[in-house]
Protein backbone atom coordinates (compact mmCIF):
# COMPACT_ATOMS: atom_id res chain seq x y z
CA UNK A 1 0.00 0.00 0.00
CA UNK A 2 1.56 3.29 -0.96
CA UNK A 3 1.00 7.00 -0.86
CA UNK A 4 2.43 9.91 -2.85
CA UNK A 5 5.47 11.98 -1.87
CA UNK A 6 7.85 9.07 -2.41
CA UNK A 7 6.91 7.18 0.73
CA UNK A 8 5.14 3.88 1.21
CA UNK A 9 2.89 2.87 4.06
CA UNK A 10 3.15 -0.82 4.88
CA UNK A 11 0.09 -2.91 5.69
CA UNK A 12 -0.72 -3.70 9.31
CA UNK A 13 0.51 -7.26 8.90
CA UNK A 14 3.77 -6.26 7.16
CA UNK A 15 4.32 -3.61 9.82
CA UNK A 16 3.85 -6.08 12.67
CA UNK A 17 6.18 -8.58 11.00
CA UNK A 18 8.87 -5.87 10.71
CA UNK A 19 8.41 -4.84 14.35
CA UNK A 20 9.01 -8.44 15.40
CA UNK A 21 8.54 -9.28 19.02
CA UNK A 22 5.71 -7.04 20.25
CA UNK A 23 2.76 -8.43 22.25
CA UNK A 24 -0.24 -8.97 19.97
CA UNK A 25 -3.64 -10.61 20.30
CA UNK A 26 -4.09 -14.03 18.69
CA UNK A 27 -4.37 -13.14 15.01
CA UNK A 28 -3.74 -14.45 11.51
CA UNK A 29 -3.68 -13.03 7.99
CA UNK A 30 -6.11 -15.22 6.07
CA UNK A 31 -5.97 -15.86 2.32
CA UNK A 32 -9.27 -17.77 2.15
CA UNK A 33 -12.64 -17.63 3.87
CA UNK A 34 -12.16 -21.22 5.06
CA UNK A 35 -8.87 -20.36 6.73
CA UNK A 36 -10.57 -17.46 8.51
CA UNK A 37 -13.54 -19.51 9.69
CA UNK A 38 -11.25 -22.27 10.95
CA UNK A 39 -9.19 -19.76 12.98
CA UNK A 40 -12.30 -18.16 14.49
CA UNK A 41 -13.81 -21.55 15.41
CA UNK A 42 -10.60 -22.76 16.99
CA UNK A 43 -10.28 -19.53 19.00
CA UNK A 44 -13.86 -19.84 20.24
CA UNK A 45 -14.06 -16.16 21.27
CA UNK A 46 -15.32 -13.03 19.47
CA UNK A 47 -13.04 -11.84 16.68
CA UNK A 48 -12.45 -8.67 14.70
CA UNK A 49 -12.00 -8.89 10.92
CA UNK A 50 -10.04 -6.21 9.05
CA UNK A 51 -9.36 -5.57 5.38
CA UNK A 52 -5.64 -5.65 4.66
CA UNK A 53 -3.45 -3.16 2.84
CA UNK A 54 -5.57 -0.05 3.15
CA UNK A 55 -5.08 3.08 5.21
CA UNK A 56 -7.73 4.55 7.55
CA UNK A 57 -9.46 1.17 7.89
CA UNK A 58 -11.94 2.21 10.61
CA UNK A 59 -13.04 5.38 8.83
CA UNK A 60 -13.63 3.42 5.63
CA UNK A 61 -15.71 0.72 7.29
CA UNK A 62 -13.08 -1.95 6.79
CA UNK A 63 -12.97 -3.08 10.43
CA UNK A 64 -15.78 -5.36 11.69
CA UNK A 65 -16.09 -5.99 15.41
CA UNK A 66 -17.52 -9.24 16.75
CA UNK A 67 -17.51 -10.34 13.14
CA UNK A 68 -19.33 -13.25 11.52
CA UNK A 69 -16.22 -14.13 9.56
CA UNK A 70 -17.97 -16.23 6.94
CA UNK A 71 -20.43 -13.43 6.18
CA UNK A 72 -17.95 -10.54 5.82
CA UNK A 73 -14.80 -12.19 4.51
CA UNK A 74 -15.36 -11.69 0.79
CA UNK A 75 -16.47 -8.08 1.14
CA UNK A 76 -13.41 -7.17 3.25
CA UNK A 77 -11.06 -9.03 0.92
CA UNK A 78 -12.41 -7.03 -2.00
CA UNK A 79 -11.93 -3.72 -0.15
CA UNK A 80 -8.24 -4.37 0.46
CA UNK A 81 -5.55 -6.50 -1.07
CA UNK A 82 -7.50 -9.77 -1.15
CA UNK A 83 -6.51 -10.93 2.32
CA UNK A 84 -8.30 -10.42 5.64
CA UNK A 85 -6.72 -10.07 9.06
CA UNK A 86 -8.69 -11.94 11.72
CA UNK A 87 -7.82 -11.26 15.35
CA UNK A 88 -9.13 -12.00 18.80
CA UNK A 89 -11.35 -9.07 19.82
CA UNK A 90 -9.79 -7.25 22.75
CA UNK A 91 -11.31 -4.52 24.89
CA UNK A 92 -8.83 -2.75 27.12
CA UNK A 93 -9.45 -0.41 30.03
CA UNK A 94 -7.16 2.15 28.39
CA UNK A 95 -5.64 2.80 24.96
CA UNK A 96 -2.07 3.98 24.45
CA UNK A 97 -0.10 5.01 21.40
CA UNK A 98 3.59 4.32 20.89
CA UNK A 99 5.56 5.34 17.87
CA UNK A 100 8.86 6.35 16.41
CA UNK A 101 10.40 8.62 13.85
CA UNK A 102 13.72 9.76 12.49
CA UNK A 103 14.37 13.29 13.70
CA UNK A 104 16.59 15.43 11.45
CA UNK A 105 18.58 16.73 14.46
CA UNK A 106 18.62 13.82 16.90
CA UNK A 107 18.03 10.69 14.80
CA UNK A 108 15.75 7.85 15.96
CA UNK A 109 13.26 8.81 18.66
CA UNK A 110 10.32 6.90 20.08
CA UNK A 111 7.11 8.29 21.50
CA UNK A 112 4.46 7.32 23.97
CA UNK A 113 1.10 8.74 24.94
CA UNK A 114 -2.60 8.35 25.40
CA UNK A 115 -4.06 6.62 22.36
CA UNK A 116 -7.23 6.73 20.35
CA UNK A 117 -8.97 10.05 19.78
CA UNK A 118 -7.19 11.50 22.84
CA UNK A 119 -3.87 11.27 21.00
CA UNK A 120 -5.10 13.68 18.36
CA UNK A 121 -7.19 16.00 20.52
CA UNK A 122 -4.98 16.28 23.60
CA UNK A 123 -1.58 15.63 22.06
CA UNK A 124 -0.49 14.09 25.37
CA UNK A 125 2.69 12.49 24.06
CA UNK A 126 6.33 12.34 25.20
CA UNK A 127 9.40 11.45 23.19
CA UNK A 128 12.55 9.50 24.07
CA UNK A 129 15.87 9.22 22.26
CA UNK A 130 16.41 5.69 20.96
CA UNK A 131 17.88 3.52 22.24
CA UNK A 132 16.58 4.61 25.62
CA UNK A 133 18.75 4.64 28.74
CA UNK A 134 17.75 3.15 32.11
CA UNK A 135 15.31 5.41 33.95
CA UNK A 136 14.37 7.53 30.93
CA UNK A 137 11.01 5.83 30.36
CA UNK A 138 9.96 6.42 33.97
CA UNK A 139 11.02 10.08 33.80
CA UNK A 140 9.28 10.60 30.47
CA UNK A 141 6.02 9.12 31.78
CA UNK A 142 6.04 11.66 34.60
CA UNK A 143 5.80 14.37 31.91
CA UNK A 144 2.51 12.91 30.61
CA UNK A 145 -0.72 14.39 31.87
CA UNK A 146 -2.13 10.85 31.78
CA UNK A 147 0.67 9.54 34.03
CA UNK A 148 -1.80 8.77 36.88
CA UNK A 149 -3.75 6.51 34.50
CA UNK A 150 -0.59 4.54 33.75
CA UNK A 151 0.21 4.14 37.43
CA UNK A 152 -3.16 2.44 37.94
CA UNK A 153 -6.28 4.29 39.00
CA UNK A 154 -9.42 3.32 40.88
CA UNK A 155 -7.96 -0.03 41.76
CA UNK A 156 -6.85 -0.89 38.23
CA UNK A 157 -3.45 -2.56 37.95
CA UNK A 158 -0.60 -0.28 36.80
CA UNK A 159 0.60 -0.54 33.21
CA UNK A 160 3.37 -3.11 32.77
CA UNK A 161 6.33 -0.74 32.22
CA UNK A 162 8.72 -3.52 31.26
CA UNK A 163 6.36 -4.56 28.47
CA UNK A 164 5.91 -0.94 27.40
CA UNK A 165 9.69 -0.57 27.32
CA UNK A 166 9.97 -3.67 25.09
CA UNK A 167 7.48 -2.17 22.60
CA UNK A 168 9.48 1.10 22.48
CA UNK A 169 12.68 -0.91 22.04
CA UNK A 170 11.16 -2.84 19.12
CA UNK A 171 10.23 0.47 17.47
CA UNK A 172 13.62 2.05 18.18
CA UNK A 173 15.54 -0.95 16.94
CA UNK A 174 13.54 -1.03 13.68
CA UNK A 175 14.45 2.64 13.08
CA UNK A 176 18.09 1.91 13.81
CA UNK A 177 18.52 -1.18 11.67
CA UNK A 178 16.51 0.04 8.66
CA UNK A 179 17.51 3.57 7.56
CA UNK A 180 14.54 3.70 5.15
CA UNK A 181 11.96 3.47 7.93
CA UNK A 182 10.88 7.04 8.66
CA UNK A 183 7.86 6.64 10.96
CA UNK A 184 6.25 3.91 13.06
CA UNK A 185 2.88 3.80 14.85
CA UNK A 186 1.63 1.21 17.30
CA UNK A 187 -1.88 2.58 17.68
CA UNK A 188 -3.86 1.62 19.57
CA UNK A 189 -2.13 -0.43 22.22
CA UNK A 190 -4.81 -1.90 24.46
CA UNK A 191 -4.16 -2.07 28.20
CA UNK A 192 -5.96 -5.15 29.58
CA UNK A 193 -5.54 -5.63 33.32
CA UNK A 194 -2.17 -3.86 33.04
CA UNK A 195 -0.93 -6.11 30.20
CA UNK A 196 -0.36 -4.58 26.77
CA UNK A 197 -1.48 -5.72 23.31
CA UNK A 198 -0.58 -3.92 20.08
CA UNK A 199 -3.88 -3.92 18.17
CA UNK A 200 -2.76 -2.02 15.07
CA UNK A 201 0.59 -0.96 13.63
CA UNK A 202 1.85 1.12 10.76
CA UNK A 203 5.34 1.48 9.31
CA UNK A 204 6.17 4.27 6.84
CA UNK A 205 9.19 3.73 4.57
CA UNK A 206 10.82 5.68 1.85
CA UNK A 207 11.70 3.46 -1.11
CA UNK A 208 15.04 1.81 -0.28
Amino acid at each position, binding site marked *: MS*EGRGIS*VLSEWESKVLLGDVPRPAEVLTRTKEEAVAFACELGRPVVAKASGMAHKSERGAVRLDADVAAVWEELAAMGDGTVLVAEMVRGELELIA*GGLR*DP*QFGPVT*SLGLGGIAAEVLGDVVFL*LAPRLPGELERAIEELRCAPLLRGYRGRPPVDLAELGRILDAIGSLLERDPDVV*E*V*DCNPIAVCEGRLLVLDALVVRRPG
Partner: protein
Amino acid sequence: MEAIFQPHSVAVYGASRDPSKLGHVLLRNLLEGGFGGQVTAVNPGLGTVLGLPTVPRLSAPADLALVSVPAPAAEAAIADAARAGCRAAIVLASGFGETGPEGKAAEQRLAAIARGAGMRLVGPNCMGVVSRLDGGWLNGSYFWRLPELAGGVSMVSQSGAFGGMFFAEARRRQLGVARFLSVGNCADVTEADALEWLAGDPVTTVVGVFAEAFSDGRRFVEAANRCPQPVVVLKAGKGAAGARAAASHTGSLAGSHGAVRAALRRAGAVEAQTSIEFFDALQALAAQPPAPPSLAILTISGGPSVLAADAAERVGLALPAPAEATVRRLRELTPSFAATGNPIDLTPQCPISSFGPAVQAVFDDAAFGGVVVINCGLDAAAFGEAVAAAHRRTGKPVIAFCLEVPAVEAALARAGIPLLPGPERAVTAFAALVGR
Protein backbone atom coordinates in the same frame (compact mmCIF):
# COMPACT_ATOMS: atom_id res chain seq x y z
CA MET B 1 39.47 25.37 20.39
CA GLU B 2 41.87 26.92 22.90
CA ALA B 3 43.01 29.33 20.18
CA ILE B 4 39.44 30.57 19.73
CA PHE B 5 38.88 31.50 23.37
CA GLN B 6 42.43 32.18 24.55
CA PRO B 7 44.61 33.32 21.66
CA HIS B 8 47.95 35.03 22.20
CA SER B 9 47.92 36.59 18.72
CA VAL B 10 45.10 37.65 16.41
CA ALA B 11 45.02 38.57 12.72
CA VAL B 12 42.13 40.63 11.37
CA TYR B 13 41.33 40.10 7.67
CA GLY B 14 39.40 42.98 6.15
CA ALA B 15 40.68 45.63 8.57
CA SER B 16 39.39 48.77 6.90
CA ARG B 17 40.04 52.49 7.33
CA ASP B 18 36.37 53.26 6.73
CA PRO B 19 34.66 53.45 10.16
CA SER B 20 31.34 52.41 8.58
CA LYS B 21 32.84 49.06 7.47
CA LEU B 22 32.44 46.05 9.77
CA GLY B 23 36.11 45.17 9.28
CA HIS B 24 37.02 48.51 10.85
CA VAL B 25 34.59 47.95 13.73
CA LEU B 26 36.09 44.53 14.37
CA LEU B 27 39.66 45.80 14.57
CA ARG B 28 38.65 48.76 16.73
CA ASN B 29 36.71 46.46 19.10
CA LEU B 30 39.72 44.18 19.40
CA LEU B 31 42.08 47.06 20.19
CA GLU B 32 39.71 48.86 22.55
CA GLY B 33 38.72 45.68 24.39
CA GLY B 34 42.14 45.45 25.90
CA PHE B 35 43.52 42.40 24.13
CA GLY B 36 47.13 42.22 25.26
CA GLY B 37 48.57 39.98 22.54
CA GLN B 38 49.96 40.58 19.07
CA VAL B 39 47.45 42.05 16.57
CA THR B 40 48.02 41.99 12.80
CA ALA B 41 45.80 43.89 10.37
CA VAL B 42 45.53 42.17 7.00
CA ASN B 43 44.41 44.26 4.04
CA PRO B 44 46.13 44.60 0.67
CA GLY B 45 46.94 48.09 -0.46
CA LEU B 46 46.63 50.07 2.76
CA GLY B 47 49.24 51.82 4.80
CA THR B 48 48.01 51.85 8.39
CA VAL B 49 44.62 51.30 10.03
CA LEU B 50 43.95 52.57 13.54
CA GLY B 51 47.68 53.08 13.91
CA LEU B 52 48.56 49.53 12.88
CA PRO B 53 50.60 48.86 9.74
CA THR B 54 48.69 46.50 7.44
CA VAL B 55 50.11 43.52 5.59
CA PRO B 56 48.73 42.04 2.36
CA ARG B 57 49.12 38.50 3.73
CA LEU B 58 50.37 36.86 6.90
CA SER B 59 54.06 36.15 7.09
CA ALA B 60 53.82 34.43 10.47
CA PRO B 61 50.98 32.40 12.03
CA ALA B 62 48.48 33.97 14.42
CA ASP B 63 46.62 31.84 16.95
CA LEU B 64 43.31 33.21 15.72
CA ALA B 65 42.31 34.74 12.38
CA LEU B 66 39.19 36.93 12.31
CA VAL B 67 37.77 37.19 8.80
CA SER B 68 35.53 40.16 8.03
CA VAL B 69 35.63 40.41 4.24
CA PRO B 70 32.84 40.08 1.66
CA ALA B 71 31.84 36.45 1.12
CA PRO B 72 33.59 36.05 -2.27
CA ALA B 73 36.93 37.09 -0.69
CA ALA B 74 36.62 34.82 2.35
CA GLU B 75 38.10 31.78 0.62
CA ALA B 76 41.35 33.60 -0.19
CA ALA B 77 41.56 34.90 3.39
CA ILE B 78 41.02 31.41 4.86
CA ALA B 79 43.57 29.95 2.43
CA ASP B 80 46.09 32.57 3.57
CA ALA B 81 45.41 31.94 7.26
CA ALA B 82 45.72 28.19 6.69
CA ARG B 83 48.96 28.60 4.71
CA ALA B 84 50.42 30.81 7.44
CA GLY B 85 49.62 28.16 10.06
CA CYS B 86 46.88 29.87 12.10
CA ARG B 87 45.31 27.53 14.66
CA ALA B 88 41.76 28.78 14.31
CA ALA B 89 39.72 31.17 12.18
CA ILE B 90 36.37 32.85 12.67
CA VAL B 91 34.52 33.85 9.50
CA LEU B 92 32.14 36.63 10.48
CA ALA B 93 31.13 37.31 6.86
CA SER B 94 27.61 36.43 5.76
CA GLY B 95 26.36 35.20 2.39
CA PHE B 96 26.98 31.46 2.71
CA GLY B 97 24.80 28.46 3.57
CA GLU B 98 21.98 30.74 4.74
CA THR B 99 21.53 31.96 1.14
CA GLY B 100 21.15 28.61 -0.65
CA PRO B 101 23.06 25.71 -2.25
CA GLU B 102 25.82 27.85 -3.82
CA GLY B 103 26.55 29.53 -0.50
CA LYS B 104 26.48 26.12 1.17
CA ALA B 105 29.09 24.83 -1.29
CA ALA B 106 31.29 27.90 -0.66
CA GLU B 107 31.02 27.34 3.08
CA GLN B 108 32.00 23.70 2.70
CA ARG B 109 35.07 24.76 0.71
CA LEU B 110 36.11 27.03 3.62
CA ALA B 111 35.74 24.13 6.03
CA ALA B 112 37.71 21.82 3.76
CA ILE B 113 40.62 24.28 3.47
CA ALA B 114 40.67 24.70 7.25
CA ARG B 115 40.44 20.96 7.91
CA GLY B 116 43.27 20.28 5.46
CA ALA B 117 45.51 22.60 7.48
CA GLY B 118 44.41 21.40 10.90
CA MET B 119 42.83 24.79 11.58
CA ARG B 120 39.43 25.05 13.34
CA LEU B 121 36.85 27.23 11.64
CA VAL B 122 33.99 29.07 13.35
CA GLY B 123 31.06 30.38 11.28
CA PRO B 124 30.59 31.67 8.66
CA ASN B 125 27.72 34.10 9.22
CA CYS B 126 28.42 34.76 12.89
CA MET B 127 29.20 37.59 15.31
CA GLY B 128 32.52 36.24 16.61
CA VAL B 129 34.01 35.66 20.03
CA VAL B 130 34.25 37.52 23.34
CA SER B 131 36.42 36.00 26.03
CA ARG B 132 37.91 37.11 29.33
CA LEU B 133 41.70 36.94 29.35
CA ASP B 134 44.17 37.91 32.04
CA GLY B 135 43.74 41.63 32.49
CA GLY B 136 41.39 42.36 29.62
CA TRP B 137 38.89 41.18 27.06
CA LEU B 138 39.39 39.43 23.79
CA ASN B 139 36.69 41.16 21.75
CA GLY B 140 36.75 39.41 18.39
CA SER B 141 33.20 40.43 17.62
CA TYR B 142 31.14 43.21 16.11
CA PHE B 143 29.72 44.03 19.57
CA TRP B 144 31.17 47.34 20.68
CA ARG B 145 29.80 47.18 24.25
CA LEU B 146 31.60 44.64 26.37
CA PRO B 147 30.31 43.04 29.55
CA GLU B 148 30.86 45.23 32.59
CA LEU B 149 31.77 42.34 34.84
CA ALA B 150 33.98 39.30 34.40
CA GLY B 151 32.52 36.16 35.92
CA GLY B 152 31.45 32.59 35.24
CA VAL B 153 28.63 32.88 32.69
CA SER B 154 29.44 31.56 29.21
CA MET B 155 27.21 31.58 26.16
CA VAL B 156 27.14 29.66 22.90
CA SER B 157 24.75 31.07 20.32
CA GLN B 158 23.97 30.14 16.78
CA SER B 159 22.46 33.55 16.27
CA GLY B 160 24.74 36.54 16.41
CA ALA B 161 21.95 38.95 17.26
CA PHE B 162 20.92 36.89 20.28
CA GLY B 163 24.43 37.63 21.51
CA GLY B 164 23.40 41.28 21.63
CA MET B 165 20.51 40.32 23.91
CA PHE B 166 22.90 38.29 26.04
CA PHE B 167 25.32 41.16 26.59
CA ALA B 168 22.50 43.62 27.27
CA GLU B 169 20.88 41.29 29.81
CA ALA B 170 24.23 40.52 31.42
CA ARG B 171 24.81 44.25 31.95
CA ARG B 172 21.28 44.88 33.19
CA ARG B 173 21.43 41.97 35.65
CA GLN B 174 25.08 42.55 36.60
CA LEU B 175 26.09 39.05 35.49
CA GLY B 176 29.78 38.31 35.24
CA VAL B 177 30.68 36.93 31.80
CA ALA B 178 33.44 34.45 30.92
CA ARG B 179 33.03 33.52 27.24
CA PHE B 180 30.72 34.17 24.32
CA LEU B 181 30.91 32.40 20.98
CA SER B 182 28.54 32.81 18.07
CA VAL B 183 28.81 29.67 15.93
CA GLY B 184 26.69 30.82 12.97
CA ASN B 185 26.36 28.26 10.19
CA CYS B 186 28.58 25.68 11.98
CA ALA B 187 30.59 24.73 8.89
CA ASP B 188 33.20 23.19 11.22
CA VAL B 189 32.87 24.19 14.89
CA THR B 190 29.43 23.30 16.29
CA GLU B 191 27.67 24.05 19.58
CA ALA B 192 28.88 20.63 20.71
CA ASP B 193 32.56 21.56 20.10
CA ALA B 194 32.13 24.82 22.00
CA LEU B 195 30.38 23.06 24.87
CA GLU B 196 33.08 20.37 25.08
CA TRP B 197 35.71 23.09 25.46
CA LEU B 198 33.72 25.09 27.99
CA ALA B 199 33.22 21.93 30.08
CA GLY B 200 36.95 21.99 30.77
CA ASP B 201 37.15 25.75 31.27
CA PRO B 202 37.92 26.48 34.94
CA VAL B 203 36.42 29.98 34.70
CA THR B 204 33.01 28.94 33.35
CA THR B 205 30.43 28.11 36.03
CA VAL B 206 27.27 28.00 33.88
CA VAL B 207 26.68 27.72 30.14
CA GLY B 208 23.78 29.16 28.13
CA VAL B 209 23.02 27.81 24.67
CA PHE B 210 20.77 29.41 22.09
CA ALA B 211 20.02 27.31 19.03
CA GLU B 212 17.55 27.27 16.18
CA ALA B 213 18.67 23.80 15.08
CA PHE B 214 21.33 21.46 16.45
CA SER B 215 23.84 20.68 13.71
CA ASP B 216 25.30 17.74 15.61
CA GLY B 217 22.41 16.75 17.90
CA ARG B 218 23.57 13.53 19.50
CA ARG B 219 27.07 14.86 20.17
CA PHE B 220 25.57 17.97 21.75
CA VAL B 221 23.53 15.73 24.07
CA GLU B 222 26.69 13.81 25.06
CA ALA B 223 28.64 17.03 25.60
CA ALA B 224 25.91 18.60 27.74
CA ASN B 225 25.51 15.41 29.72
CA ARG B 226 29.23 15.28 30.52
CA CYS B 227 29.50 19.03 31.18
CA PRO B 228 30.16 19.50 34.92
CA GLN B 229 28.59 22.98 34.86
CA PRO B 230 24.84 23.42 34.48
CA VAL B 231 23.67 24.02 30.91
CA VAL B 232 20.62 26.17 30.08
CA VAL B 233 19.15 25.78 26.60
CA LEU B 234 16.80 28.08 24.72
CA LYS B 235 15.61 26.43 21.52
CA ALA B 236 13.89 28.64 18.97
CA GLY B 237 11.71 27.39 16.13
CA LYS B 238 9.49 24.93 17.96
CA GLY B 239 6.44 25.32 15.80
CA ALA B 240 7.26 24.00 12.35
CA ALA B 241 6.73 20.30 11.82
CA GLY B 242 9.82 20.07 9.64
CA ALA B 243 10.30 17.73 6.72
CA ARG B 244 8.38 14.76 8.10
CA ALA B 245 6.34 12.38 6.09
CA ALA B 246 3.66 12.63 8.80
CA ALA B 247 1.67 9.74 7.34
CA SER B 248 1.52 8.39 10.89
CA HIS B 249 -0.03 9.76 14.07
CA THR B 250 3.42 9.86 15.60
CA GLY B 251 4.71 12.06 12.79
CA SER B 252 1.86 14.54 13.06
CA LEU B 253 2.06 14.65 16.86
CA ALA B 254 5.79 15.31 16.99
CA GLY B 255 5.97 18.92 15.84
CA SER B 256 9.65 19.66 15.83
CA HIS B 257 9.93 19.82 19.57
CA GLY B 258 9.24 16.28 20.78
CA ALA B 259 12.74 15.14 19.93
CA VAL B 260 14.29 18.29 21.39
CA ARG B 261 12.62 17.64 24.74
CA ALA B 262 13.82 14.04 24.64
CA ALA B 263 17.33 15.24 23.87
CA LEU B 264 17.42 17.88 26.61
CA ARG B 265 16.03 15.39 29.14
CA ARG B 266 18.97 13.08 28.40
CA ALA B 267 21.39 16.03 28.29
CA GLY B 268 20.35 17.00 31.81
CA ALA B 269 19.98 20.56 30.56
CA VAL B 270 17.63 23.20 31.91
CA GLU B 271 15.18 23.99 29.12
CA ALA B 272 13.99 27.60 29.07
CA GLN B 273 10.70 28.28 27.30
CA THR B 274 11.26 31.99 26.75
CA SER B 275 14.22 34.38 26.60
CA ILE B 276 13.12 35.78 29.98
CA GLU B 277 13.22 32.33 31.57
CA PHE B 278 16.59 31.75 29.91
CA PHE B 279 18.26 34.81 31.42
CA ASP B 280 16.50 34.26 34.77
CA ALA B 281 17.97 30.74 34.87
CA LEU B 282 21.47 32.00 34.01
CA GLN B 283 21.17 34.65 36.72
CA ALA B 284 20.11 32.07 39.31
CA LEU B 285 22.75 29.50 38.34
CA ALA B 286 25.51 32.11 38.20
CA ALA B 287 24.98 32.95 41.87
CA GLN B 288 23.46 29.94 43.62
CA PRO B 289 24.39 26.28 44.17
CA PRO B 290 22.31 23.32 42.92
CA ALA B 291 19.11 22.77 44.93
CA PRO B 292 17.00 19.77 45.89
CA PRO B 293 13.42 20.03 44.56
CA SER B 294 11.87 21.25 47.81
CA LEU B 295 11.68 24.79 49.09
CA ALA B 296 10.18 27.13 51.63
CA ILE B 297 8.48 30.28 50.47
CA LEU B 298 9.37 32.80 53.15
CA THR B 299 7.66 36.15 53.27
CA ILE B 300 6.33 39.09 55.20
CA SER B 301 3.96 39.87 52.30
CA GLY B 302 1.02 37.45 52.07
CA GLY B 303 -0.63 37.65 48.63
CA PRO B 304 2.38 37.48 46.31
CA SER B 305 3.71 34.48 48.24
CA VAL B 306 0.57 32.53 47.30
CA LEU B 307 1.30 33.27 43.64
CA ALA B 308 4.78 31.89 44.27
CA ALA B 309 3.26 28.75 45.78
CA ASP B 310 1.04 28.29 42.72
CA ALA B 311 4.10 28.65 40.48
CA ALA B 312 5.99 26.05 42.55
CA GLU B 313 3.21 23.55 41.97
CA ARG B 314 3.22 24.29 38.23
CA VAL B 315 6.95 23.70 37.84
CA GLY B 316 6.95 20.57 40.01
CA LEU B 317 8.66 21.88 43.14
CA ALA B 318 7.55 20.51 46.51
CA LEU B 319 6.46 22.86 49.29
CA PRO B 320 6.79 20.61 52.33
CA ALA B 321 5.38 21.61 55.70
CA PRO B 322 8.00 22.75 58.22
CA ALA B 323 9.03 20.33 60.98
CA GLU B 324 7.05 20.49 64.22
CA ALA B 325 9.99 22.02 66.06
CA THR B 326 10.20 24.79 63.44
CA VAL B 327 6.48 25.51 63.81
CA ARG B 328 6.85 25.72 67.63
CA ARG B 329 9.79 28.11 67.30
CA LEU B 330 7.92 30.30 64.80
CA ARG B 331 4.89 30.39 67.12
CA GLU B 332 7.09 31.68 69.95
CA LEU B 333 8.68 34.35 67.78
CA THR B 334 5.88 35.70 65.56
CA PRO B 335 2.36 37.11 65.99
CA SER B 336 -0.42 34.58 66.50
CA PHE B 337 -1.78 35.25 63.01
CA ALA B 338 1.54 34.43 61.26
CA ALA B 339 1.32 31.54 58.76
CA THR B 340 3.53 28.62 59.74
CA GLY B 341 2.70 26.28 56.88
CA ASN B 342 4.35 26.86 53.52
CA PRO B 343 4.39 29.71 52.47
CA ILE B 344 5.67 30.90 55.83
CA ASP B 345 4.43 34.44 56.47
CA LEU B 346 6.16 36.13 59.40
CA THR B 347 3.78 39.11 58.82
CA PRO B 348 4.65 42.83 58.91
CA GLN B 349 3.88 42.88 62.62
CA CYS B 350 6.69 40.45 63.46
CA PRO B 351 8.95 42.08 66.13
CA ILE B 352 12.23 43.24 64.60
CA SER B 353 14.24 41.23 67.11
CA SER B 354 12.41 38.05 66.01
CA PHE B 355 13.37 38.21 62.30
CA GLY B 356 16.84 36.77 62.91
CA PRO B 357 15.87 33.67 64.91
CA ALA B 358 12.68 33.05 62.89
CA VAL B 359 14.49 33.14 59.55
CA GLN B 360 17.23 30.98 61.06
CA ALA B 361 14.67 28.37 62.14
CA VAL B 362 13.32 28.17 58.59
CA PHE B 363 16.77 27.83 57.00
CA ASP B 364 17.79 25.19 59.55
CA ASP B 365 14.74 23.01 58.81
CA ALA B 366 15.95 19.96 56.85
CA ALA B 367 12.62 19.79 55.01
CA PHE B 368 13.73 22.71 52.83
CA GLY B 369 16.43 22.43 50.16
CA GLY B 370 16.26 26.17 49.59
CA VAL B 371 14.20 29.29 50.07
CA VAL B 372 12.33 31.72 47.85
CA VAL B 373 12.00 35.05 49.63
CA ILE B 374 9.10 37.40 48.85
CA ASN B 375 9.05 40.92 50.22
CA CYS B 376 6.78 43.68 48.92
CA GLY B 377 6.41 47.20 50.25
CA LEU B 378 7.56 46.82 53.84
CA ASP B 379 11.27 47.58 53.92
CA ALA B 380 12.23 45.62 57.04
CA ALA B 381 16.02 45.81 56.86
CA ALA B 382 16.29 43.30 59.73
CA PHE B 383 14.41 40.73 57.63
CA GLY B 384 16.83 41.22 54.72
CA GLU B 385 19.87 40.99 57.01
CA ALA B 386 18.47 37.84 58.60
CA VAL B 387 17.99 36.15 55.21
CA ALA B 388 21.48 37.18 54.07
CA ALA B 389 23.04 35.84 57.27
CA ALA B 390 21.12 32.54 57.17
CA HIS B 391 22.02 32.05 53.49
CA ARG B 392 25.71 32.63 54.22
CA ARG B 393 25.67 30.32 57.22
CA THR B 394 23.71 27.39 55.73
CA GLY B 395 24.73 27.75 52.07
CA LYS B 396 21.15 26.93 51.08
CA PRO B 397 20.16 28.48 47.76
CA VAL B 398 17.92 31.56 47.85
CA ILE B 399 16.12 33.46 45.11
CA ALA B 400 14.14 36.58 45.97
CA PHE B 401 11.35 38.74 44.65
CA CYS B 402 11.40 42.19 46.24
CA LEU B 403 9.32 45.23 45.47
CA GLU B 404 10.15 48.73 46.67
CA VAL B 405 12.19 47.59 49.66
CA PRO B 406 15.62 49.15 49.01
CA ALA B 407 17.22 48.18 52.35
CA VAL B 408 16.17 44.53 52.01
CA GLU B 409 17.22 44.46 48.35
CA ALA B 410 20.63 45.88 49.24
CA ALA B 411 21.17 43.30 51.99
CA LEU B 412 20.20 40.40 49.71
CA ALA B 413 22.26 41.70 46.78
CA ARG B 414 25.33 42.01 49.03
CA ALA B 415 24.90 38.32 49.87
CA GLY B 416 24.79 37.48 46.15
CA ILE B 417 21.11 36.50 46.22
CA PRO B 418 19.49 36.94 42.79
CA LEU B 419 16.54 39.35 42.75
CA LEU B 420 13.89 38.65 40.15
CA PRO B 421 11.00 40.95 39.26
CA GLY B 422 8.02 38.70 40.05
CA PRO B 423 7.03 35.91 42.45
CA GLU B 424 6.50 33.36 39.65
CA ARG B 425 9.82 34.25 38.04
CA ALA B 426 11.67 33.80 41.34
CA VAL B 427 10.19 30.31 41.70
CA THR B 428 10.85 29.32 38.07
CA ALA B 429 14.46 30.48 38.46
CA PHE B 430 14.72 28.35 41.62
CA ALA B 431 13.54 25.37 39.54
CA ALA B 432 16.54 25.92 37.24
CA LEU B 433 18.79 25.25 40.26
CA VAL B 434 17.21 21.81 40.64
CA GLY B 435 18.32 20.80 37.14
CA ARG B 436 19.36 17.17 36.80
